[in-house]
Structures are given as structure tokens and as C-alpha cells.
């Protein structure tokens, strides 16, 4: 029997949800507001809220000083590339673990997850040296591979959870109809798993977009993505909060918009399998 919810309780819940939502959103809102202020207004005490002379000056300066398009393109390349490459590996891997498990499947899954527990800085030097040897420093390709490998455990785990939900009988039926392995994965499994695959892709694009340790450490000028673009506006001796805010807004805008339009998919994908 479903619990009855009184109107009053509903109103309270809604109110609380809004308050929490706004609290979480506040830093982004403040960054956005600050990006339209002058540097003096940005540090004003008491703070200025909405009533100031809105200016696009910071955006102009940032545009003038940095090659935003190049940073943006690098971010798209790295986030997109690492996700596509990762899916090419993760889909077959998750398929085999979900539908033809062996005694070791559970151990392999846990082992993969354990790599996420290693602090990244612990392997910085080995990877840096390998990159020097292979001439991959400051290359988008090298970074794409590293980001792909870092996110691979999450991709496999997510896909594995979705695939487990698909009844094996359907795959068996396809096999009886004469479908080979390729057809089975491509024409039967994939269409059914589309929501899961879509949310895995989305989450990985977001993770890769926001990744700031490897992208800062393995790039210099050519392959640097938007994370490096933001970092370049922080100053040890000088106040550039308004410009920093403008740069941050420009860096997070694309991914925020993507997240906004795909939030249904994202929420569904993230909560899928949570209520079994």
C-alpha cells in the first residue's frame, strides 16, 4: 500500500528540496554573477548582488588573452575521444562478464574497481616518464588514452549493472534464430541497453571534461583543455576574481548545457539498478 502524503508534508518536502538545490547551485550562480562585475565589485564588502552595472568586459579580456576555441576543442576531443574509445572496450567487456561469467568475474570486477582507489599522484612519475619515451607529452592522443583508461572501470561497472538487468532468455531466443555474436550484441543487446549506454556515455563525458589532475600534468600549450584555461586565471599576487569567474563560466557552460538537456537520461541512468 502506498503511503498517503498530506499536502502539508508535500509542501515541506518541496521547500526543503528547493533550499538544498539552491544551496548546491549557489556557487555556480555566484560565479556567473561575479563574471559580469568589475574587479572592485567582485571583492566589494558588503557583497553586491544584482544591482550593479553589468559588464561584458571580463569576457572581452579573457577572449583577447586566451585562445578559448583551442582549449574548447581540446576538451571536446579528449572527452569525446576517451568516451568513444572506452565504450569500444567496455561494451564487449561488460557483455562477457554479464552473460558468460566465469568463476573469476567477480574478482576481476573488484580488481578493476581497486585501481580507482589508487591516488593518481602515485603513478604520476611512471606515466610521465612513459609519455616522454613515447613522445606523448602535450598530445591530445596521449591524454585521451590516459583519461580513457582512468574511466574504464566505471564504464565497465555501469554497463555491467545494466546488462545484468536484461533477461538472458531474450539473447538465447536471438541465438536460436541464428544470430551470431556480432548480431547479438549489435542488434539485440545494444538497442535494449540504449538508456544504460547513453547515461554511461554522458557520465563519462562529464568526468573526462572535468578531469583536472592528468590534464594539467601531462599538457603544456598544445593539448591543454579547459581545465588548464581556468587554472591560468588564478593569481598568486593580484586580484582577478571577476576574470577568473568569466573563464570558469566559459569553461563549464558547454557541459552544463549538455547536462541540462540530458538530465532525464542522467538521473535515470544513475538511479537505475539502485532500487532492486
Amino acid at each position, binding site marked *: 500500500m502506498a503511503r498517503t502524503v498530506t499536502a502539508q508534508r508535500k509542501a515541506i518536502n518541496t521547500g526543503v528540496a528547493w533550499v538544498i538545490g539552491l544551496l548546491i547551485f549557489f556557487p555556480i550562480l555566484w560565479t556567473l554573477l561575479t563574471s559580469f562585475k568589475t574587479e572592485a565589485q567582485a571583492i566589494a564588502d558588503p557583497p553586491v548582488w544584482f544591482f550593479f552595472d553589468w559588464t561584458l568586459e571580463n569576457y572581452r579580456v579573457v577572449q583577447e588573452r586566451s585562445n578559448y576555441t583551442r582549449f574548447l576543442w581540446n576538451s571536446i576531443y579528449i572527452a569525446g575521444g576517451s568516451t568513444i574509445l572506452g565504450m569500444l572496450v567496455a561494451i564487449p567487456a561488460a557483455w562477457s562478464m554479464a552473460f558468460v561469467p566465469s568463476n573469476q568475474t567477480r574478482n576481476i570486477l573488484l580488481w578493476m574497481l581497486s585501481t580507482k582507489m589508487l591516488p593518481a599522484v602515485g603513478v604520476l612519475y611512471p606515466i610521465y616518464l612513459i609519455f*616522454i619515451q613515447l613522445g606523448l607529452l602535450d598530445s591530445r592522443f596521449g591524454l585521451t588514452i590516459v583519461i580513457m583508461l582512468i574511466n574504464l572501470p566505471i564504464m565497465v561497472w555501469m554497463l555491467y549493472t545494466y546488462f545484468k538487468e536484461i533477461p538472458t532468455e531474450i539473447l538465447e531466443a536471438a541465438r536460436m534464430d541464428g544470430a551470431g555474436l556480432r548480431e547479438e550484441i549489435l542488434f539485440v543487446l545494444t538497442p535494449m541497453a540504449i538508456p544504460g549506454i547513453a547515461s554511461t556515455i554522458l557520465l563519462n563525458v562529464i568526468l573526462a571534461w572535468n578531469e583536472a589532475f592528468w590534464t594539467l*600534468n601531462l599538457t603544456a600549450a598544445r593539448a*591543454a583543455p579547459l581545465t588548464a584555461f581556468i*587554472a591560468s586565471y588564478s*593569481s598568486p*599576487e*593580484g586580484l582577478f576574481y571577476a576574470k577568473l569567474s568569466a573563464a570558469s563560466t566559459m569553461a563549464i557552460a558547454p557541459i552544463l548545457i549538455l547536462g541540462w538537456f540530458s538530465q532525464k537520461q542522467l538521473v535515470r541512468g544513475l538511479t537505475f539498478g539502485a532500487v532492486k
Partner: protein
Amino acid sequence: MEHRKAFASATALSLVMASGALAQELTIATVNNGDMIRMQGLSSEFTEATGIELEWVILEENVLRQRVTQDIATSGGQFDIMTIGMYEAPIWAERGWLVSLDGLPEEYDVDDILPAMRAGLSFEDSLYAAPFYGESSMVMYRTDLMEAAGLEMPEEPTWDDIAAAAAAMHSDEVNGICMRGRAGWGENMAFIPTVANSFGARWFDEDWNPQLDSPEWLEAVTFYNDLIQEYGPPGAANNGFNENLTLFQQGRCGMWMDATVAASFVTNPDESVVADSVGFALAPNRDGVDRRANWLWAWALAIPAGTQQEEAAMEFINWATSKEYLELVAEREGWANVPPGSRTSLYENPNYAEVPFADMTLRSINAADPNNPTVDPVPYVGIQFVAIPEWSGIGTLAGQEFSDMVAGRQTPEQALERAQALVQDEMEAAGY
């Protein structure tokens, strides 16, 4: 047929190589400080004159330091010019990580570099990093508040003068004094060691035994702590350069002791509400101690060994740290915006002498002696740091203890006792 193919590909290859050589490009790592931004803006003139293209990698200070250290230690070859500080220059030069700048042309006039800066950036009498701008620290104070309190700030104050001024200016609206409290070897540990020097304390004796258990250290740290607790802003344990700059520009500090380079910010009417009522004084000392609490630092340009473009990099450094560059900035942006603290000739220039903080900046820099940072003899070089590779670790650990003290979590005695133990452990582990 085969021959023709081979010839064609050889021609293509040589064309590719030639175009690579023509479009010469330097990668420069630097920080986002105002003077560097100006350099970036003006650098198109350099490209026009030489045909050398520039790629700028601008990073947050700590990221920059980690990034260039990692690259230089592994010969990654990502950068042709690095912005480094006075701490790194002699250590890296000794390890053979930097190209000596002895090859700079005669016109560069290396003797014009301020002696303190040159000493701090050299190793075995060779310059290894060219100062882009240099700084010491000094007292910046509100002339209007001092006047209202009926006090006058001496040009060479003692700590007693500072304490009296802080007490007089302190009110509900204004904090008597703002000082660094945030943990970090480039944050509170740039400041506290200078206070220690001005009380006659030292980090190590001649045999590298840590001296933080000395009475001088206790006196210095207790004084600093009392001052910041009584007259400092709330939450001072989190304040670094930028936080204090913000407070001062808003008119919330009666005094602020920090880098001389801040003078051009606090006197800039576009940013600072107190721009026309700021006075400057030398960093203080304890009455009778022959050392003042001022540090010495330079943001300098260096060429990592192993760059493929040493010649072009040298050419850029020759441009960016030259006398002509200072004039170029003056012409475009005014004398107050010229990068300070690098060259003697700048301070001899009558136009620059009119800048309100020029004289006090020079006096502060000249008052700093990195070879004799405190009263007693020490085995190390450096004023607000100790120029050994272990320092960044030691400074970070000790800085945390002092920041905890400012936050009220421990007493000066406890902070010093723990810092002494930490330093001792680190030094023993390092084999001293």
C-alpha cells in the same frame, strides 16, 4: 621511377623540416600576475621583431611549481622558458638543470641588476635566472587613520611602533594589522621566518641543528601571535596575500605587512578605496636587533637545460628583462606599472622616482641580505626560506603548526615544540 619517388619524398621531408625551423616557437611557463600579463600583451612586439612565436602556459603558482619541477627533473622538455623563484634558482643550477645566462650580450648590462637580486639568482658567480620583477616586504599603512590617532609612523619602525599603531587604529570597522596566517611555505612561511630574523632567531646553527626551541623563536612567534589575535581580522589563519589585499583595498586594515609589489595595487584608485591615503615604511625589527623583517624574492626567467631552442630562449630573456622593456612598459602603461625591483637604472631614473613607493621598495630590497639573513651566523642562504631542497617540505609542515596556532588550536610553545620535532625528523631523514 624509384629514384624519382625517393627524390620527391626527400624534397618533401626537407621542406617540412625547413618550415619547422622557420616557424620557431618558444613555450613559456609563467604565473598570472599583473606584470606577467603585461609582458604577454607586449610580447607581440618581440615576435614582430624576431619572428619567434610564443606559446604561453599560464598556471596557478603551486601547479606551476610542481609542473616545472616535474618536467625539469625528468627532462620532459615541455618548456623553453620557465618562471621560477629565488628558492629554485641556485638549487636547480647546482644540479645542472638550468642553462647559465653568461651568454647574454654586453648591452644587456648584467651589472645593472640589483646586487641582492643577482646574488640570489646566481650559482658560483654565474647568473642562472634573470629577474623579471623583484620584491621585498614592507609596511603599508593608512595615513588617515594614523593621523586621526595622533601617531606618526617612523620610516624605520620597531615592532613596538607597529604594536602601538595597531592598537591605536584597531576598531570595530578596521583591523589594526593584517598579516599572513594561511599555512604553506610560500604563504605564512614567507612571513613568519622574517619576523624570527628580526628578533634574532635562526633556523639552524652552523652544524644544521634546528633552533626552533631557542628563546628568540619563542619571543618572535609569541609576538606575532599576540598581534594577530588582538588586532588581526577574524579568520586570519586562512589569509594569504590575496585575502589581505582584498581587506586592505576595502579599507579594513590599518596596516598590512607584505610584498612590496602590493604597493601598486593598493594605490590604484580603480581597485582600492584607500588609494590616496597609503603610506609606506620599512619592515620592523625588535629594538636593538640589527635585522629587519623583510624578505627577498624574485620572479625570474630561466632556461631549462635540454631545451632545443636555447638561442631563441636567450633572445626572449634578453628582451623581457632588459632596460628597453622597462621603458616600453612605461611608455604604454605608465611608470607605476613598470615591473619593479630588478634593475638599478630604474631607480636612478627621475621619472620613476616620482612613483610613491619606488624609494621604499628599493630601500627594502637593499636592506635584505640573503647571505646573512639573521644576527647569528647560519649555514644556509635565503631570508624567508632556507635554500635547500628539503625546505619546501619543512616549510609546509612547520607552516601548518603556526597556522593552527593562529586559529587558536595551540599555544606558541606547542607550535614551536612540534615544529622543532618535525624539522629535526626531516633533517635527519635527509642525512644532515
